[in-house]
């Protein structure tokens, strides 16, 4: 197999070497023989070509060269083709031997054309042979920049979301921040207990640093005092408008029994 593409692609026309390694199969040999006829491939004599091929194979055998099977298959097929071509024309023959001959001619022409095309391709201005490019171009770079998509609405709704998230725990805390009425009732009843002396109601207010809690406690404790008085369990007295509101126990009672009864009916 020739590795040198600059060498002539075809074998020299007159001397057909018998070194089979130089041939790329039976079609290559046939093309070499056809070119040796020194005529246009369209005008070659198929019969002469067959004879030359069979002679080539006979020579190879005489020299005891090992022939690959496809060379022998071709020889057998060409011998058959020759016999068909020499017989009187038989309209029933299928395939028509003349079509087969045409087909062989076409194949030789086609292979020859591709050899020619390959040679002409190699003769062009080839990269690395006739033309040269930059060895290490820098390359182009497309860098995706970091632009971020965000709209005012996104910011506002995010902030709204944060606020809503924070509101939930706050409600539960605020509820603990007031002194509920039932809690105030229980607390006042417990604190007043059996105290028969008049005592300023404000003395019973819880002391807390939180202003809001203290105001809530004032309101609920006042209401608790009114409720306990309505139930007849405490007395309330006031000397004057805005004067201290005084409270005292009427009957000492265990606180929890009463409170449970009243808490249900007077929740608000």
């Amino acid at each position, binding site marked *: 197999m020739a590795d040198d593409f600059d060498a002539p692609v075809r074998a020299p026309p007159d001397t057909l070497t018998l070194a089979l390694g130089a041939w790329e199969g039976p079609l290559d040999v046939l093309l070499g023989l056809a070119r040796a006829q020194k005529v246009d491939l369209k005008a070659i004599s198929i019969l002469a070509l067959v004879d030359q091929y069979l002679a080539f194979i006979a020579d190879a055998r005489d020299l005891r060269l090992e022939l690959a099977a496809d060379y022998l298959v071709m020889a057998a097929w060409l011998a058959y083709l020759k016999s068909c071509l020499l017989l009187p024309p038989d309209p029933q023959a299928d395939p028509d031997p003349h079509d087969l001959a045409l087909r062989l001619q076409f194949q030789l022409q086609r292979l020859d054309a591709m050899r020619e095309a390959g040679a002409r391709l190699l003769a062009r201005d080839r990269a690395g042979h006739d033309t040269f490019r930059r060895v290490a171009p820098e390359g182009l770079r497309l860098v995706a920049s970091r*632009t971020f998509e965000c709209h005012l609405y996104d910011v506002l709704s995010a902030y709204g979301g944060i606020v809503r998230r*924070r509101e939930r725990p706050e409600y539960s805390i605020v509820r603990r921040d007031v002194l509920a009425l039932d809690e105030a009732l229980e607390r006042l009843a417990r604190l007043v207990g059996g105290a028969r002396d008049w005592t300023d109601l404000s003395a019973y207010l819880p002391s807390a640093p939180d202003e809001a809690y203290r105001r809530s406690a004032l309101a609920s404790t006042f209401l608790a005092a009114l409720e306990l008085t309505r139930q007849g369990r405490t007395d309330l007295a006031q000397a004057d408008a805005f004067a201290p509101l005084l409270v005292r126990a009427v009957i000492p009672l265990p606180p929890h029994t009463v409170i449970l009864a009243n808490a249900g009916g007077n929740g608000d």
Partner: protein
Amino acid sequence: MTDPGLIREVEAIVFAADAPVTVAEITRHVTAAGDVAAALADLAESYAPRGIVLVERGGRWLFQTAPDLGHVLRRTRTAPRKLSRAAVETLAIVAYHEPATRAEIEDIRGVTVSPGTLDVLMAAGWVHPAGRRESPGRPLQFATTPGFLADFGLADRRDLPGIADLRASGLLDRAPPSGASAGDFAGGGLHSER
């Protein structure tokens, strides 16, 4: 004027060389006669206004792209990315509470703020460091940039809708300046702890 044939050879040799070449190396390869150094000078002059220029670096010649065209070869394409929810929330908190420290942002969001989140907002040009808080640890504070107002179509930070309503409801009240640590800020403002 140098022989145009020599100039063409020199031009091709420098272009196809696998590294910058010296005058001696070029001389070894040219087939046309003449002064290679003069050919290089002529070439450099004729290329000067082009997008490709011929330059000498330490006695070696090479073609390179014109220095002012770097931005063309390394073209940046804008590929808008959506901000993460964490980033949007952080941006909102900074906008409503600025200047805000990272601890404050974390306290308000109720989750830690990953370092990348503020980086993204700074890369976007919407948030920037705004000095240190004069409180223990002197934490860095963050504020929005004029670019934030411009990008979000706000003339002023006061234009942030709803901020007045939120403040009136007590939800945005800052802690008194005396208790300036992060915990106190949160305690006085958006939530209360007992």
